């Protein structure tokens, strides 16, 4: 039997083009903010996990987990440090490892961070590095970029279910509106549907405004066993469910392109563990690296029937004030997407929401939140369910 775990502290950097900050500056800033948020001191940490997709390619730096400890002035503690990689899901995986280390009884306090420093390389290199999250030999090498792979999914969804180009665009419009309320977001500006639909084509039918930006940024959360959590914070947020799933790396190998089986696998387990159902969730963070992914996420998590995600978006249900607010943070689209940081930033947003500290983007009365973090074309999915204690 595993024991209950809570998040006791969160820390985030501003996301965006952070020319003045290096990889180590960013993750140190987030980590120290998280520790200051919860009165945990360095030597109380039993395990440290860092999610980062490709620091080696973006900055030539591997060994980032011990680098974090070193930069935070904690090298003399010799705390075990581990980097976790699952492309876009790296952050969510790091959180899950930290969660498991405490749930198993091995650790009492653990910290999970996520970081990516993406703007030190030209845009062309960003496209190539993101391609490493697909099947290198049978997708990337023959010309299929990451946006192209998601475009193949989007077209299939549109042709199978009648999802419209406008419905995809409304995901970006809504997330930019939410981002305008988030002082840490990369884009704090609303956009019109017209702007989205007239932005340059990247890979038809997906346009520039269907995609999350390349960003610099970091996020960190501190976790503790629930029975000691109250010595660190007045408002522990319980991790009531944690699920993870995987799928074929190549899109062409899958039976269906219009849903992510890895997400369903992860969600089933997280909901079962939390003894909750989709209708019990008040606020959601979904991995909208592309607009189509938010629609797939809504469907795969069970918030609506397969194929109905576009219509649900159109009704306004997924906006703050709607029945199912999705990505109040602005999502990857507007908050920014420093890849490894994303899964942690999602959960940090939920913690803010469940504490009632989300300011002008607060979802009223939020008691239970869910985060979906995915890597590749739905190759790795991590779902966490959080509840106010």
């Amino acid at each position: 039997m595993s024991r209950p775990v809570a998040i006791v502290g969160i820390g985030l950097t501003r996301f965006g083009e952070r020319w003045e900050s290096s990889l180590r500056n960013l993750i140190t800033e987030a980590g120290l903010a998280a520790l200051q948020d919860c009165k945990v001191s360095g030597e109380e940490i039993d395990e440290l996990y860092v999610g980062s997709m490709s620091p080696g390619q973006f900055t030539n730096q591997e060994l980032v987990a011990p680098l974090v400890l070193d930069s935070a002035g904690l090298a003399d503690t010799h705390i075990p440090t581990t980097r976790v990689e699952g492309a876009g899901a790296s952050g969510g995986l790091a959180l899950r490892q930290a969660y498991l280390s405490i749930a198993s009884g091995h650790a009492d306090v653990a910290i999970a961070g996520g970081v990516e420093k993406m703007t030190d390389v030209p845009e062309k290199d960003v496209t190539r590095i993101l391609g490493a999250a697909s099947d290198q030999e049978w997708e990337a090498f023959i010309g299929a970029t990451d946006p192209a792979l998601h475009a193949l999914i989007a077209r299939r969804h549109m042709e199978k279910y009648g999802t419209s180009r406008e419905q995809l665009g409304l995901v970006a419009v809504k997330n930019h509106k939410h981002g305008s309320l988030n002082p840490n977001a990369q884009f704090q500006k609303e956009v019109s549907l017209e702007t989205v639909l007239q932005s340059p084509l990247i890979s038809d039918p997906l346009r520039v405004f269907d995609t999350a930006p390349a960003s610099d940024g970091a996020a960190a959360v501190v976790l503790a066993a629930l029975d000691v959590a109250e010595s660190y914070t007045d408002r522990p947020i319980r991790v009531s469910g944690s699920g993870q799933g995987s799928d074929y790396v190549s899109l062409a190998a899958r039976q269906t392109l219009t849903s992510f089986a890895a997400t369903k696998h992860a969600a089933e387990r997280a909901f079962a563990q939390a003894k909750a159902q989709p209708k019990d969730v008040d606020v959601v963070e979904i991995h909208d690296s592309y607009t189509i992914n938010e629609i797939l996420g809504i469907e795969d998590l069970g918030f609506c029937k397969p194929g109905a995600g576009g219509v649900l978006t159109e009704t306004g249900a997924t906006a703050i004030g709607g029945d199912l607010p999705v990505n109040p943070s602005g999502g990857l689209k507007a908050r920014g997407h420093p890849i490894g940081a994303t899964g942690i930033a999602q959960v940090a947003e939920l913690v803010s929401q469940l504490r009632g500290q989300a300011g002008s983007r607060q979802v009223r009365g939020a008691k239970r939140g869910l985060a979906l973090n995915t890597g590749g074309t739905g190759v790795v999915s991590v779902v966490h369910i959080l509840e106010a204690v």
Partner: protein
Amino acid sequence: MAVPRFWREQPQRYRLVGTECPKCKGVYFPPRSVCPTCRRASVGKMRPRQLAGRGKILTFTVVHQPADGFELQVPYVMAIVELDEGCRVMTQIVNADPGAVRSGLPVEACFRRIREDGKSGVIYYGYKFRPVRGKTATPPSVIVEAQPRRRRA
């Protein structure tokens, strides 16, 4: 890509050779050493299977922001093709007007230059797919004859 990394995949890339599971007759491309249906029972028994290279487009995209090395081909079409043997393959679609490509279009494999390692590096060849000509359902307007290759400046 390093030369051996490409060379060891030449049968697949040049001739579209996949694998077949002798137990369930499932066909896979690219080749698999384990059948995902029969698993343990298939280990060491998977056989090479020559694919006919005919199928239909399941879904496609017109790429405007290219992959590294594909700059001269923009806009180009990528698709998932459902082969007659039942498996699916990721491929570029060539000899077709990008604006006229549709899901369901019958296509066939052809042999093409994929990319090259700089001016004096290795040239990689492999399969791409093109609309089927002649008696099939492909409207003639979709087909574009091959053009002389544009040279790098």
